[in-house]
């Protein structure tokens, strides 16, 4: 399978990476070069494998509700790019659209 400009632009947007147009051209080539090597996987017979890997025996470990939080050895202000009154500050979400971008 091969990617085109639109694919790379779409994926860059999903990944929040601002890619310039010339870099976009290069990336289409680079990604296709890599993806070409993946086609071999389509040939492999994996019937029945997924059932085997979905028979787990162990559960993810569970933690007690009353454990208490892990400490930070330095205050948030030390590593935060921008803080005010205890909040992390970012440039404002300008549009109604952006607010609705989130899922619930």
């Amino acid at each position, binding site marked *: *399978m091969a*990617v085109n400009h639109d*694919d*790379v632009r*779409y*994926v*860059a947007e*999903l*990944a*929040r*990476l*601002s*890619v310039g147009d010339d870099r976009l051209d290069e*990336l289409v080539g*680079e*990604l296709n*070069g*890599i*993806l070409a*090597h*993946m086609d*071999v*996987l*389509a040939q*492999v017979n*994996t019937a029945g*494998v*997924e059932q*085997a*890997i979905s028979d787990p025996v162990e559960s*993810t*470990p569970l*933690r007690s509700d009353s454990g208490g939080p*892990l*400490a*930070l*050895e*330095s*205050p*948030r202000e*030390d*590593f*935060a*790019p*921008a803080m005010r009154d205890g909040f*992390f500050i*970012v*440039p*404002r*979400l*300008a*549009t109604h659209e*952006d607010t609705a971008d989130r899922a619930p």
Partner: protein
Amino acid sequence: MNTAEFAALHATAIAARVSAGEASPADLVKATFDRAAEVGAGSDALNLILWSDRDLADRDAKALEEGLTRAGTGGRLAGVPVAVKDNIATLGLPTTCASKILAGYVSPYEATVVTRLREAGAIVIAKTNMDEFAMGSSNENSAYGPARNPVDVRRVTGGSSGGSAGVVAAGIAPIALGSETGGSVRQPASFCGVVGVKPTYGRVSRYGLVAFASSLDQVGALARNVEDAALAMEIIAGEDSKDSTSKPIPVGSYRDQFLSLASSPAPLDGITIGVPAEYFPEDMDPGIRSQCDRSIEALRSLGARVVDVSLPHSSLAIPVYYIVAPAEASSNLARFDGVRYGSRAAVSGGLREMFGQTRSEGFGREVTRRILLGTYVLSAGYYDAYYRKAQAVRALITRDFHTVFGNGIHALFTPTTPTTAFAIGAVTDPYEMYLGDVFTASANLAGVPAMSIPIGRIAGLPVGGQIIASHFCESMMFRVAYALESALGSEAHQ
């Protein structure tokens, strides 16, 4: 103690001397920093070390000294200087993952593996250079410049734990922590002529290891010899309640097991070692082939039975790895958005622009490429054909190992890398670089433990031999490695 003397000391010897009061932690810190200066570990020369703080190290040495006076005896790593790869969280020294997006970031918490080393008395003396976010096989993808191989400074250290391998090879610290996702400890160990260990997946806590590919990542250890590497493993291994993927399987004393056999004439008597055909292709480098042949002979002389085996799906490891790892990475690196930590781009627009610019400016080319690749293989319409399919093929690769180990094979022996260290700048095609992981990636995909030890040299360049064992059978792996190391002796470094 002079630097030459220091550079030859084993970690076990250092700890013994410190505990006995024959060496002071402060002297060891001095020796480390002197040695680092002597070989040029900083950005002006080998560029192995990104961050270090002499004052901090001296304070730690003093605290250790005071603790020793009170306790009367030291931990198993008392006074031992250790270097830590820059993607493992430490207090005091920055954790940047060799990326601009984390420039100046000092973690407010410490990785479990670092806590365990320090509780054993070790002193963290530096954060080492690496490929950015552990994505690379040469340490040329660092935002802070490539690391240089101490054996030949025109050549790469290998990656991604290049700085850690180089620090050990240059005698700056006897032990260094690295991380493995596709071979990132074993491959640079092979290129630099040191020992590098990747534990079983789930053997060592990942809490504090900046995630690249969560289902593959493990912290690994580099050392000048098998015994020190085994000691480091004994200390950092074991379940951690903060890592849900770490397993509650007891950690053995790896050293006791092989040291007790050390005087035996046939320490591998009763052991069957498999040599997988797929790792010895027709067009294999003849120099590496002959080094491997010599090692196989040595294994036989140690009493092992050596047989041919097959891991039929080996050739699929690289395609599988380069779908699964970037996919998980694309998700793991989404947290780098400039909101809570790290660098943030100055923009005139709104939040969307801030995210885009921060990430584009902060991530290097290889990281960007892998995030795009990973996002693509997870995206709607492609998930089944790529990610899901790759995980299914991964299960076949794992099954290959189960089959072989279930058929009376105790360990496997293979070359670690298809080549010796190449020149800086020599490999530019991404996929060609990826192929450097061809012998290492399978072990990460299957989760089995594997390690590389020096087995010889070609034109002065180190060659690594790889020992692979079954899940949680580090004891067996170390036993074979130690015996081989002893048998080869100084030939391993010629």
